[in-house]
């Protein structure tokens, strides 16, 4: 029952938000986000004590055999937790931001949260598809109404890309549905126990994977992402990059690895090569970016590429690394956006060339920025390190060469992040940055939560790994290709 609340609370509160006005809407949305966070923490705790109680399965469309089948496993509960945290942090960081038509902004944000929770909690393929699409609709409006210049074209490109991918996934779902025995079913368990020929699986693999690859985004499907991150309003970018792109990886973990093991065996290596190319390519592009948002967008492509590569390596340590990194990367990128948003709010620019000397005038911001960036570089004792170390160890077991090429990213990320840091927070201040004021309380609070999480998980990742342990085990057990 508690799982349904994860979806229902944001959905209902989101619809109510449309009826409120201005600041009331903002406060209402914030309270809703906190309630959802509490529920998701509750879910994560329940998962450890009594996982069976999180499952709910009632008929939906009886003619098709589609059910409202919700449940949480390790990775799903961690992703729900990430969604809960992201919303609280996002709303905190834009607490004083005056959006036009505020009630619509917050209403759409909450509807999107309901969609995200639904994606993570669905164990019925049709339901999964419905939520998968429902995430994109509020995102489309959020980016198109409150975005920067060129917002309509950029957002539409983003929409059509993902819509096209998900329609192909729908065809895949239909095909699998008719393979299930007896009265057909969409349930994950039924899909998992299918015995398909390797020919079928390798075809189906692409029907599903294109949707997920576009969402991640994997090179060469990534072209929507930097533009969208740049033009979207920063609170939306936060949710897109922290949570929504993880849907792609989550889809691979939920619907491809267990359902199409032979397809993975056949195409996995190819996808890994694409991912590794993407890592190096995106890292190189990140070096030359002058816009902070674009820089982090490319950095995000590189990180997602690494996770995608390792997820197909099917090694235990690697898989564990991917699962924890999905959470960690979400937290770190949130921190980066909070800082970008703070800088843009105070100075009205995100151009690296115009910034400088922030450490002198606003030390709190500079320190927080530095710490989050260290997490992004994956310095030991930060959470980024835990995930990346395990992922590279997994990749090494799979292939030394791939690890070496992907490992270039470790150097490249240090280059572009440190170079950016040096230009933005060190050096002398100029006429523009002279007037900067330090972090407001709410921004400081948001960053404190993030930095706290980065170091907590970096120093003691065991609780998180425990939750994810079972998922890793079952994924690997299922994926033994006969």
């Amino acid at each position, binding site marked *: 029952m508690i799982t349904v609340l994860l979806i229902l609370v944001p959905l209902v509160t989101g619809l109510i938000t449309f009826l409120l006005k201005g600041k009331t809407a903002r406060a209402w949305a914030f309270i809703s986000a906190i309630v959802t966070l509490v529920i998701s923490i509750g879910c994560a705790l329940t998962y450890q004590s009594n996982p069976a109680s999180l499952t709910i399965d009632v008929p939906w*469309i*009886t*003619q098709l055999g589609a059910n409202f089948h919700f449940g949480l496993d390790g990775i799903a509960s961690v992703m729900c937790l990430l969604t809960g945290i992201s919303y609280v942090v996002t709303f905190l960081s834009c607490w004083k931001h005056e959006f036009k038509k505020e009630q619509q902004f917050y209403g759409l944000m909450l509807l999107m949260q309901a969609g995200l929770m639904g994606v993570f909690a669905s164990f019925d393929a*049709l339901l999964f*598809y*419905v*939520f998968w*699409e*429902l995430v994109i*609709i509020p995102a489309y*409006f959020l980016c*198109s*109404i409150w975005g920067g210049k060129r*917002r*309509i074209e950029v957002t*539409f490109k983003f*929409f*059509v890309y993902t*819509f*096209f991918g998900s*329609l*192909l996934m*729908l*065809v895949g779902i*239909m*095909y699998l*549905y*008719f393979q299930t025995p007896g009265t057909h079913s969409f349930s994950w368990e039924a899909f998992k126990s299918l015995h398909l020929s390797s020919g079928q699986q390798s075809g189906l693999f692409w029907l599903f994977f294109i949707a997920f690859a576009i969402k991640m985004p994997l090179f060469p499907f990534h072209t929507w992402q930097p533009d969208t991150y740049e033009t979207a309003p920063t609170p939306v970018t936060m949710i897109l990059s922290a949570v929504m792109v993880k849907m792609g990886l989550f889809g691979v973990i939920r619907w491809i690895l267990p359902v199409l093991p032979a397809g993975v065996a056949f195409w996995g290596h190819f996808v890994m090569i694409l991912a590794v190319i993407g890592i190096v390519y995106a890292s190189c592009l990140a070096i030359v970016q002058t816009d902070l948002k674009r820089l982090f967008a490319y950095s995000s492509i590189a990180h997602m590429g690494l996770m995608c590569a390792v997820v197909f390596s099917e090694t235990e340590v690697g898989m564990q690394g991917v699962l924890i990194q999905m959470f960690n990367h979400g937290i770190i990128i949130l921190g980066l956006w909070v800082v970008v948003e703070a800088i843009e709010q105070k100075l009205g620019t995100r151009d690296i060339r115009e910034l400088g000397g922030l450490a002198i005038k606003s030390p709190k911001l500079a320190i927080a920025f530095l710490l989050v960036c260290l997490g992004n570089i994956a310095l030991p004792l930060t959470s980024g390190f835990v995930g990346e170390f395990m992922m590279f160890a997994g990749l090494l077991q799979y292939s030394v060469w791939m690890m070496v090429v992907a490992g270039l990213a470790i150097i490249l990320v240090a280059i572009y992040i440190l170079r950016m840091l040096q230009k933005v927070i060190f050096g002398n201040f100029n006429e523009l940055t002279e007037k900067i004021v330090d972090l407001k309380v709410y921004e400081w609070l948001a960053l404190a939560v993030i930095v706290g999480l980065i170091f907590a998980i970096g120093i003691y990742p065991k609780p998180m790994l425990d939750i994810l342990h079972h998922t890793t085990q079952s994924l690997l057990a299922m994926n033994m290709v006969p």
Partner: protein
Amino acid sequence: MNALISTAVFGIFLMISGLFIKSKQAIRILAISGVVAAFVLNIIDFRQYGASATELFHGMLSVTNFGLLFIEIILGCVLVYFLLSGKDLANIGHYTGEYFALIFFILCGVVLAATYGNMLMLFLSIEIMSIPQYILAGSDKHNLKSHEASLKYFLMGAFSTGFLLMGIALLYGATGSFDITTMNLAGRPIDAMALAGIILIAFALAFKVSAAPFHFWTPDVYDGAPTVVTSFISTIVKVGGFVAFIRLFHIAFGSPDVDKHWLLVLSIITAATLIIGNVTAVFQQSVKRMLAYSSISQAGFMLFAVIAMNVLSWQGILLYAAAYSLATIGCFAILMKMKDYTYDGYNGLAQKQPLLALMNTIFLFSLVGIPATAGFLAKYFVLSAAVEKGGLLWLVILAVCCAAISAFYYFRLIWAMYFKAGDCQVEEHAITPAFKSVLALTALLVIILGVWPGLILAWI
């Protein structure tokens, strides 16, 4: 067959009442109560007919609960249509009673299409549906384009009716029967005469539902006819044509050793309809014309129900009829309130009429096939019917690519309404609270059907 009798009687009644009743308002209310009466009377019929066919009038009609349910959906959509656009229909010209009477005659044809058991009745139903349409398309007598639409439609329609008759004649020659259930084409080698008959009928029906390459009349007729008429003929009549199509091909030509002869032809027609409808719609500047092409592309999706031939396709066509008709009638009802029919005419509608913009968005979502709207499940049913049949995966993938294209032209309207600043001109006086609330209820229905299709499907 209460629906057949009540629609025919009401048609005649309204035609005569035009002589005595001068108030447009009164005739409109009369027509609405006529639809409600037919709706209720049709529900009563449900108890008598089951899933297996009941023959009436010596096999001329064969009534199933599928047919009745289809009629029920159509009557529901017409009710929505009258409530939303009845005033516009009454105001086309001076002959209010006649306009409504013609609509009722068309309904009578749709009822026949859903229940015919004999090819003669098929011919009759197609004709009863078509002839009032020719008149309605030309009902705006002061508009040259309306005349052109009417004439074009009539000439092309008469031509295709000829095809239909020739097809029926050839089939009769080959089988010695007009009865669709006992025609019995299966079990013996098919001769050239029967094959030619099937293909001719397929072409004639493809013309009626505006499938490519028989679609050339559609944009001009839909554009030229008064908008309120276009709203009707592009929805109710089109799905009426589809139910005739699907019933004939499933019942008479559906057995596996017959369908191999026409399946490829219809698959190619489907592919062509999808591609032409969607690609051409992208280039339209007028929303009315865009909706005309959109109706072609939606016909492409409905053709999947014809070629798939299984339980899912029967359920699919029911859902599609409801989803497509409701959404398109809603879009047209809003279009009629605009002064400028181009995309730019919608600029800034969200500021001026937030409710109208929101409802229009829901209808457009349903037409695109976004989940949680009826359009999604309708598309899902017809496409998965084709997947279940097997061998049509190429067509399904083509269809989803076309669905992605369709997002472009439907979303362009959403851009105009929400993201572009502008001063759109609407007919304020026509947007009454009653209109708004019916519109909101229709949109709600679209969402309810999208979440709970059992509302319709539980009845068969």
